[in-house]
């Protein structure tokens, strides 16, 4: 039981931490998902909103965390934990959106873009002399999938007629299926599909659009290269972590290792926690688009500020621009990428991803019958 609380507590704490730190990971010219010129980053309103946002996100975490802990300990309802996490996400989002609206209002009222030239800068070298995709980093993940499959093939003839394929939060088997390729290899299929999906996704993000800062193009071009390389490595590391969990899961189904009750749950969760901690630590180091990474000094400036593209961003979070040929763009509040919903490719990508997300449990369900 304690192990389950530990994992849920970790997720909760991570979400509070990410909400609290997120503004610091965004470019100073994109406070709360609003585009502003570089000379406005120190506006008193923005400084005030940042301070208020940090106080509110932390306070929200403490209050909801305390309520959830009290209710769960007193009543024993595990559902309170999931509900608490959903409420937390919503309330933290409200604080973001509140600050977002306020910065937009100040920007319009003060006419911050008056008289400024808005431009875009591209470093052609990022395309004509691209850095190589870190293929070596895919080897641990792919190796683990192959290793799991081989162990399964060796073990298959000796497997009993009935397999325990589902365990509850206490680590006690509560789902059984007759021995078949589907039931024995269900997790191996999911492992393979998940790995392929993550590697495919990382190839796309590795080549995603460069979003250079028009006011510091030389530095941001260096940072872009370092950011996509390091993020790709971290995502591939996460894929390997997920595969370790899937390997342990498969070994449990095959009876190679015995479920040790709640401790198994922690064992299954730990690799994924390691992957998530790794990727979070990297995000804090790099910042969105790598703007926190060190970069060489350059006196070159384009004399322009970044284009005010707020009108294409719904709530500063959803991007919809039919004139933009990119289908993946940098998030405005969060580290990583989001889709351009004005691009047909984004919808294709979404349908495929959702299809696999729904398809994987379907394989699992097939295994039951």
């Amino acid at each position, binding site marked *: 039981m304690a192990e389950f609380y530990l994992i849920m507590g970790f997720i909760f704490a991570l979400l509070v931490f990410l909400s609290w730190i997120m503004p610091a990971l965004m470019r100073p010219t994109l406070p709360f998902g609003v585009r502003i010129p570089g000379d406005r980053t120190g506006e008193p309103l923005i400084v005030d909103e940042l301070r208020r946002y940090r106080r509110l996100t932390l306070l929200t975490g403490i209050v909801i965390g305390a309520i959830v802990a009290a209710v769960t300990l007193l009543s024993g309802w595990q559902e309170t934990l999931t509900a608490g996490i959903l409420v937390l996400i919503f309330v933290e989002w409200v604080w973001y959106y509140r600050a977002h609206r306020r910065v937009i209002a100040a920007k319009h009222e003060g006419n911050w873009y008056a008289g400024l*030239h808005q431009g*875009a*800068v591209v470093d052609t*070298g990022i395309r004509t002399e691209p850095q190589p995709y870190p293929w070596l980093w895919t080897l641990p993940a792919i190796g683990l999938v192959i290793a799991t499959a081989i162990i399964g093939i060796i073990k298959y003839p000796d497997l009993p007629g009935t397999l325990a394929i589902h365990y509850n939060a206490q680590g006690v088997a509560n789902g059984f299926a007759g021995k078949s390729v589907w039931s024995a290899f269900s997790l191996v299929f999911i492992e393979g599909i998940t790995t392929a999906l993550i590697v495919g996704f990382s190839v796309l993000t590795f080549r995603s659009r460069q979003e250079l800062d028009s006011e510091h193009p030389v530095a941001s*071009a260096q940072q872009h290269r370092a950011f996509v390389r390091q993020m790709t490595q971290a995502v591939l590391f996460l894929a390997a972590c997920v595969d370790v969990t899937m390997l342990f899961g498969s070994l449990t189904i095959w009876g190679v290792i015995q479920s040790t009750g709640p401790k198994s749950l922690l064992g299954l969760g730990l690799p994924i926690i390691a992957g998530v901690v790794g990727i979070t630590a990297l995000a804090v180091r790099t910042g969105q688009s790598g703007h926190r990474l060190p970069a060489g000094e350059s*006196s*070159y400036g384009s004399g322009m500020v970044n*284009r005010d*593209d707020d009108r294409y961003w719904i709530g500063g979070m959803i991007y919809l621009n039919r004139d933009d*040929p990119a289908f993946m763009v940098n998030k405005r509040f969060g580290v990583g990428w989001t889709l351009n919903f004005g691009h047909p490719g984004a919808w294709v990508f979404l349908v495929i991803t959702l299809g696999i997300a729904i398809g994987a449990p379907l394989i699992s369900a097939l295994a039951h019958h």
Partner: protein
Amino acid sequence: MLLAIDLTSEVPIYQQLRDRIVEAIAEGSLPSGSRLPATRQLAADFGINFHTVNKAYDLLRQEGLLQLTRKAGATVLRDAASGPPPAEFAPSWEERTRTLLAEAVAQGMPKSEIVARCEALLAGFGTGSSDPLNTEG
């Protein structure tokens, strides 16, 4: 090489792209044989319409400065070191220069100053070495 476009300018974007690339060739930061990104890639990096980049590249191809290939994108065909321009180049260039010079003359700029400014601009090309645009990220 850094390419910058001004989205608030009255000059059309394809024209700006074409002008910046010609300048980069003159400055030496895009020597003959160097490559430019494929049309779709450059459009996605700028967040502008694919046809805009296409139009700029096509102008440069017509001027004999770029060679376009379906897959590899664009390659610079010639630069200052490639020898004198084809015979048909000078007349049309002179026509456009005449208009530019006429603007200065009409505004009363002395002839000596016009020549001095032209020489200073010319001296800015072909050096390449101290050019901040040359910095590779």
